[in-house]
């Protein structure tokens, strides 16, 4: 059997079982945070900063506190001043501690000033208007050039700002992070090249746009603890960060995540929970805080805009002799994820192609603009735009088909890259070789589906509407090696069902279903026998949460190991019941049986025996898992576009997204992730942008003015799962969730070039930019 066929014999994994929460959601049952709102809950509203950079000289909340219905007002004068980091990452975080619950300084339009909890939203809003604030407006910093300039205004001048681990952080220079490495000699590699390139690229802000905005509720339990029900991707990080921010023990807090209406990384940040918890503590009442869409845009986290300089050298035969990638990101007013995003811009991209001489330099700077955070694909999304645009550029220079140029250069199974070790996330990475890799097949299948053979040079095209095909290759990772940890427990019930408890966080991806499939496969029962409970800091084991493409690969392996532990106990008890030795029996279809099947006992009978009858004990498996590698999923994307050369409008006609995610645990969910991420990426490439006025205020903070693609705009997207088998993953699985968003910007950019000869190094590809580039070609 070929490696990629290893998953074919599986009975639960590699099958598209229905999502276990599908019916609940389809029927509109209470599922989301706001569905569980007690009748006596207070409503929280926030007074946001109107200034990009200002010091609060004076503040008077006394009128607001006396307003009808108002129960509590929080501001920097009446809360603990505890510096912390809002990014939900491993501990200690590789991000600066530069945030307070409330501060006497505001650093972007949309920063916190004061919060009100009142009986009704109207009362809370009225109270906000009664708060008097006197600001000393400071000179703002809006661009990377301004942030880096000598003598630039210092955005974080507070003495408490620091990093909890030894990484570069110079707030007096607005520098949030700096990471650099070199493999081989970049200078030597450039000298060996027949052609050299030096290009700059710009990538834009973007918003995750989950349909359920940030929502959090806190209440005091009868035992005096704080129960936080919240829309989060990181319940355990949330508990830790809230405990720190409030100055109370972790023991006092329980965080529960119900169903989530999308996250895409934005809910990896603790933006509401500290305030809802403090309000609940102060008032003794349940408190709900829910961002509206405008708040989600202005104050919620965003994708870091990047300025990229990419240099490379190539020989006439297609050998890439040198790559020099310099990335500078704008992390906005706070630095969470500032280091990891820029690290991933090199770590998740540079190993893709063979090259002996690689130089990477990544920096992250504060500005007085909205705050960057985790967003699906982070770092790689931005860097792949540059790298994959330049790959086409280089291929054309040496007269080679860009597809073939990628084919001869991409990393193969068994190969490593010095970048894997050089660029970790906050510390050095681990040396790694690629195990599973079906990128070659992805390229072949994608090219066939996209009709690559019919692609023609742009110089042969005439007429107003011109069509072009572009492609790109991609890689990502699966969890953060040696940092991320997931755990699971699984116990049997009398009827042969199992309680699977996981800390892993299903944010709408279907991970509860996927983990149930993995447990069922290992236990040789069916997925419908799994009762999944996840993401409750009191009741489930620890898990870092849903990010870094980790849940299936990392938490899934923890689940498989826990199931294996339970299975061992089932086998022992079953053998005892059958009067056999454990090595004489095996599991099959929810039974323990001997080799010829003449003796067998069901899981239900085993559970009843162990719980009620003899040698009584609870069959319960438990396991933790930490990864030692981060196997990349691979992808090849192909876009066919039509460009209106009179207006610059670009229409995507067809898009092919191939993906090697190892074993697709649930193929339908994998296709859904791939299609959704691809559409998200198309929208990012073409229409999404933050428009600011001269004061740093976002001008298009609504779905009326910030254009995301919906199903109405969906082009023909063909998702192709190309299986491989990753030995280190549960039943061969890697990851699928992030990689797909990284392709559309470079693939569409390359397609626009193929259609018109216009090369754009900046997106979104707005009609005006495209038209300008087309006119430049004509000149």
């Amino acid at each position, binding site marked *: 059997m070929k490696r990629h066929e290893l998953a074919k014999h599986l009975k639960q994994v590699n099958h598209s079982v229905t999502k276990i929460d599908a019916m609940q959601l389809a029927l509109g049952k209470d599922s989301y945070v706001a569905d569980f709102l007690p009748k006596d809950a207070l409503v929280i509203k926030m007074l946001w900063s109107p200034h990009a950079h200002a010091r609060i000289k004076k503040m008077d909340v006394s009128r607001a506190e006396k307003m009808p219905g108002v129960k509590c007002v929080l501001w920097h004068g009446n809360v603990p001043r505890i510096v912390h980091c809002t990014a939900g990452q491993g501990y200690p975080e590789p991000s600066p501690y530069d945030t307070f619950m409330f501060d006497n300084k505001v650093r972007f339009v949309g920063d916190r000033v004061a919060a009100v909890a009142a009986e009704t939203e109207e009362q809370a809003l009225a109270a906000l208007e009664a708060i008097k604030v006197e600001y000393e407006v400071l000179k703002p910093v809006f661009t990377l050039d301004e942030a880096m300039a000598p003598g630039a205004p210092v955005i974080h001048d507070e003495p408490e700002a620091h990093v909890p681990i030894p990484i570069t952080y110079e707030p007096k220079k607005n520098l949030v992070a700096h990471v650099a490495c070199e493999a081989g000699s970049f200078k030597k590699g450039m000298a060996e090249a027949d052609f050299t390139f030096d290009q700059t690229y710009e990538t834009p802000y973007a918003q995750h746009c989950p349909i359920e905005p940030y929502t959090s509720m806190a209440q005091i339990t009868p035992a005096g603890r704080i129960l936080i029900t919240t829309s989060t991707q990181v319940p355990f990080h949330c508990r830790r960060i809230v405990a720190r921010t409030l100055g109370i023990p972790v023991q006092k807090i329980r965080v529960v995540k119900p169903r989530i209406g999308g996250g895409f990384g934005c809910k990896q940040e603790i933006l509401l929970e500290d305030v809802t918890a403090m309000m609940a503590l102060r008032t003794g009442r349940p408190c709900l805080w829910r961002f509206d869409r405008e708040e989600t845009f202005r104050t919620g986290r965003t994708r870091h805009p990047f300025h990229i300089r990419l240099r490379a050298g190539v020989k006439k035969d297609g050998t890439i002799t040198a790559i020099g990638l310099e990335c500078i990101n704008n992390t906005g007013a706070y630095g969470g994820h500032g280091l990891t995003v820029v690290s991933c811009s090199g770590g998740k991209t540079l190993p893709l192609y063979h090259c002996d001489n690689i130089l990477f330099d990544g920096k992250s700077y504060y500005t007085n603009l909205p705050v960057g955070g985790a967003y699906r694909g982070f770092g790689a999304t931005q860097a792949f735009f540059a790298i994959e645009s330049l790959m086409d550029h280089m291929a054309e220079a040496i007269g080679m088909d860009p597809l073939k140029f990628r084919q001869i250069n991409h990393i193969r199974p068994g190969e490593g890259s010095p970048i894997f070790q050089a660029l970790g996330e906050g510390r050095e990475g681990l040396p790694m070789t690629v195990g599973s890799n079906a990128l070659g097949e992805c390229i072949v299948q994608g090219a066939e589906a996209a009709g690559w053979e019919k692609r023609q040079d742009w110089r042969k095209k005439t007429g107003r509407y011109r069509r072009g095909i572009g492609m790109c290759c991609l890689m990502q990772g699966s969890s953060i090696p040696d940092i991320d940890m997931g755990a699971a427990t699984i116990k049997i019930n009398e009827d042969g069902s199992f309680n699977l408890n996981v800390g892993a966080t299903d944010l709408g991806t279907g991970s509860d279903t996927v983990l149930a499939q993995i447990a069922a496969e290992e236990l040789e029962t069916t997925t419908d026998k799994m009762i999944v409970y996840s993401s409750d800091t009191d009741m489930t084991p620890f898990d870092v949460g849903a990010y870094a493409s980790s849940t299936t690969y990392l938490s899934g392996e923890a689940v498989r190991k826990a199931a294996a532990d339970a299975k061992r106990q089932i086998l022992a008890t079953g053998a005892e019941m059958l009067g056999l030795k454990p090595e004489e029996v095996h599991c099959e279809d929810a039974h323990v049986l001997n080799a010829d099947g003449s003796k067998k006992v069901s899981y239900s009978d085993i559970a009843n025996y162990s719980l009620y009858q003899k040698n009584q004990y609870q069959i319960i498996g438990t396991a933790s898992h930490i990864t030692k590698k981060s196997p990349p999923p691979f992808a090849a994307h192909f876009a066919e576009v039509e460009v209106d050369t009179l*207006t610059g409008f670009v229409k995507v006609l067809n898009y092919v997204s191939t993906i090697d995610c190892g074993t697709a645990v649930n193929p339908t969910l994998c296709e859904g992730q791939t299609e959704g991420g691809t559409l998200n990426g198309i929208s990012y490439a073409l*229409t999404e942008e933050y428009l600011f006025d001269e004061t740093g205020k976002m001008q298009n903070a609504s779905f*009326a003015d910030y254009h995301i693609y*919906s199903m109405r705009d969906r082009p023909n997207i063909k998702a192709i799962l190309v299986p491989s088998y990753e030995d280190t993953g549960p039943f061969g699985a890697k990851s699928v969730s992030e990689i797909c968003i990284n392709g559309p910007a470079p693939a569409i950019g390359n397609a626009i070039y193929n259609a018109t000869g216009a090369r754009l190094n900046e997106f979104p590809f707005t009609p005006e930019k495209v*038209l300008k580039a087309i006119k430049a070609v004509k000149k």
Partner: protein
Amino acid sequence: MKLCEFIRPASLAQARAALRKLGPKGMPLAGGTALHFMPGKAPVSAVDITGLGLSYIRQKGAFFEIGAATPLSDIQRHRGPRWAMHEICRRISTHQIRNVSTIGGNIARVFPWADLPVVLLAMNARLVIYSGKMKEMGADEYFSSQPARLFRGGDLLAAVKIPVLKAHHGFGSVKAARNAAAFSMVTIAALLELKDGKIADARVAAGSAIPFPKRLPSVEAALIGKEPSAEVFRAAAALAGADAKWCKQEGMSAEYVANLAEVSIVDALERAAEFARGRTA
């Protein structure tokens, strides 16, 4: 806007009486989608006009008459001889909104991005207003400024009358938007009357990229008496700047928007000419 009262009159007369009594505190309400764009905390009483028989499309003589409370989705779905209104209606917002948003609501208060006023100006529609009795006015007069001026005394828009296009008439519209549900960057509508292979009459209107929808008289004048060719259309479109000062929007410059408008004018004219030559809608 804060709705504090909801009145359901049984007749147009009752609705008008209620609105007269309420004055600035009253507001006729049909689909209600425009409420989203009406900030403010002043309490307002809504007078529901959806139960007054104003939702219909019927052909009466030389006109299609559309009741003011007819949802856009009904107009989108309607078909009739040389009917052209569905094209623009299917481009307005999302189908969920089109199911409730009405033609009257779209033109009783004109938002800068509104598409229908542009189309109605080009089509030389007539607007029927109830002021105790029905009275009509042409689109040019109706859209000469914000129509709210016409409804201050409690008067109500009752219907929109669209001329049935004759055999030698053609209509074309173009809406340039960033995606399917986005507001328009530029909307252009054109009505051409062809006679003996030449343009006998032309009405061309623009919206969205200008503060208020309007006709483009210089463009129209440049068309009349000419053959309906691409060259003529381009030459006419190039004169649009004399009639309209195009505004920057969506992060794009006024210069770009002007170019987009000119291309859209040509496209709308070509569609209108094609329609006039025999294309069915």
